[in-house]
């Protein structure tokens, strides 16, 4: 190409690269970053940061529906600490979180190990195993409630006709039983999350390691504890953190399954806060009750963040 052509090109270009001033402004990294972050951050500030500050304020006042109330200091918190139902709800929340997480981890790990093998229909089995996790919890909790129905329980029917029981089991009508039933349903719902996430972790472990360990004479049990478990520990920790947060703050499962009953024996912090804040309209007390979840959640998140930092540095 000759010089004449080149000059013509230059001329063309001078006319053709024309962009609006706004776009020019967005060529600056900082301006663009600000523009891109603005919508998301605005939503998070309006609907998370601001409500959080409001929750703190509410918890220090006697606000209720239709009455702005006044500043009462820590009264709402001391009242909650002396409230027998709240004490029960707090214990329940810890119990529920602890056992459901243990079961989800153990069963989820077992299921992940099973799914990690090759077998026919593996894809469809894996896909259907996730159903409890994607179907709305409220809807599946109703199915469970129907299965636990005092009079028409299919499980009582099966156990009775199988000759295992002679009298019906009081699934949701006894306090102790109801709590364990809630743990069962939560485990059922959350197990797939553990299984699929741990499965993804398992698939990154080279089979060579297992074969090498097998050649060294390790049986399946030893191979799990010496090869699989240590390599899976980082994923496990993260999944457990997520699950603890979800379970500790659970609401819908209990709301549908027992509504906190019988006799407040299955209330969690969230369901009790809902009952006080929305049911009775005591917004200040409800906000204070909710905030009792915060220190625990904060501790868990803190552990998570520290762990992430360590991963980045290591």
């Amino acid at each position, binding site marked *: *190409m000759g*010089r004449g*052509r*080149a000059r013509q*090109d*230059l001329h*063309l*270009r001078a006319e*053709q*690269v024309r*962009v609006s001033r706004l776009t020019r402004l967005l*060529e600056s990294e900082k301006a663009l970053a600000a523009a891109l972050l603005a919508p998301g951050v605005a939503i998070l500030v309006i609907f998370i940061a601001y409500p959080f500050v409001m929750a703190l304020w509410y918890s220090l006042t006697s606000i209720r529906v239709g009455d702005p109330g006044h500043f009462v200091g820590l009264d709402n918190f001391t009242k909650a600490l002396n409230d027998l139902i709240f004490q029960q709800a707090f214990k329940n929340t810890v119990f529920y979180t602890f056992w459901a997480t243990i079961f989800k981890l153990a069963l989820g790990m077992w299921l992940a190990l099973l799914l990690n093998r090759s077998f026919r229909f593996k894809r469809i089995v894996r896909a259907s195993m996730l159903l409890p996790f994607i179907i709305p919890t409220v809807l599946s909790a109703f199915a469970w409630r129907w299965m636990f129905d005092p009079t028409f329980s299919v499980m009582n029917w099966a156990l009775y006709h199988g000759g295992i029981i002679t009298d019906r089991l009081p699934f949701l009508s006894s306090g102790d039983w109801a709590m364990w039933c809630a743990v069962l349903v939560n485990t059922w719902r959350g197990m797939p999350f553990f299984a699929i996430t741990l499965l993804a972790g398992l698939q990154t472990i080279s089979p060579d390691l297992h074969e090498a360990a097998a050649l060294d004479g390790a049986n399946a049990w030893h191979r799990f504890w010496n090869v699989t478990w240590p390599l899976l520990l980082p994923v496990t920790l993260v999944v457990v953190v997520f699950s603890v947060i979800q379970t500790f703050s659970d609401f819908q499962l209990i709301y549908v399954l027992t509504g906190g009953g019988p006799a407040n024996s299955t209330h969690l912090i969230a369901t009790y806060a809902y009952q006080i804040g929305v049911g009775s309209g005591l917004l200040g007390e409800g906000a204070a009750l909710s905030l009792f979840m915060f220190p625990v959640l904060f501790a868990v998140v803190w552990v998570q963040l520290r762990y992430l930092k360590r991963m980045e540095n290591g």
Partner: protein
Amino acid sequence: MAIVTIRDLNKKYENGFHAVKDVNLEIRDKEFMVLVGPSGCGKTTTLRMVAGLEEITSGEIRIGERVVNDLPPMDRDIAMVFQNYALYPHKTVFDNMAFGLQMRKYPKDEVLKRVRDAADILGIEALLERKPRQLSGGQRQRVAVGRAIVRHPQVFLFDEPLSNLDAKLRVQMRVELKRLHERLETTAIYVTHDQVEAMTLGTRVVVMKDGYVQQVGEPLVLYGQPANKFVAGFIGSPAMNFVDVSISGDGRHAETEGLRLNVPDRIRAHGGKRLTLGVRPEALRIANGSDEHGFATKVDVVEPLGNEILLNFRAGGAPMVARVDPGVRLKAHESVRFAVDPERLHFFDATSEAAL
């Protein structure tokens, strides 16, 4: 079509790393300028500052008449070929090549014509409807080059474009790039860590180290008159042999344990000093009876390469390589006498490493 002028260029990253230090360069119109150096020497950072992908800490870059310091890449009228080709995976080869023209709102028939022309030059007409993942490494390389040339930019920038290819393809593409440059007559800046590429492609070559320019010059000047020990060692393969020597009091000989060589007259003034002596492998030859500037040693390893033979040995306490005629019949551990013409010896200051 354009002169690129770089004046007092500096790049300091936020973490304090000073990647480019006081670089001054003038790249002439239609010149193929190669920046070469080991990794971390600042060559890529310099190129990226010319492209507008890195902010300039201080200094000035001009393309043609314009100072481009604050221009975004799109306004600099340049094209760049990346090491990993950076082909847009979701676009066909045609769309990859047309993208730059479409962004500048060229008329459709002009886009079509230019892409066809470029594809024709590079022999990739048959690939225009394919996606990048359906191409081999060499084909991707061609598409990346094609994408750059359709734009008829003022300057081509190449960032190690051949280093992802296998050895054979690399040699082939090297020749094609050179031919292409002769045909297009466009200023080009080419970054590589491979001195062979630098020597074969460059009209001139810039050798960089630790952010500083070590030497700028035509390939044979760099080879024949390296400015310092680093350039001397970097250019040429196998690399120049170095050995620390003392110059005799009368300034006629360079001496070290087991080695005594006559030196050229220009070294006479350095009598009694310690210097670094450099000798290229091809400057060493096997001595015959009449040679007086020789030294005796024992061969360690023989590397027969077919067109030449590399002899590895030790002399003056340093490992050395000699490159000799393939007709030479020598086995490992045999004794041998080498000779070297004093004019082909290089000397460097022991502390500043500057050539003497």
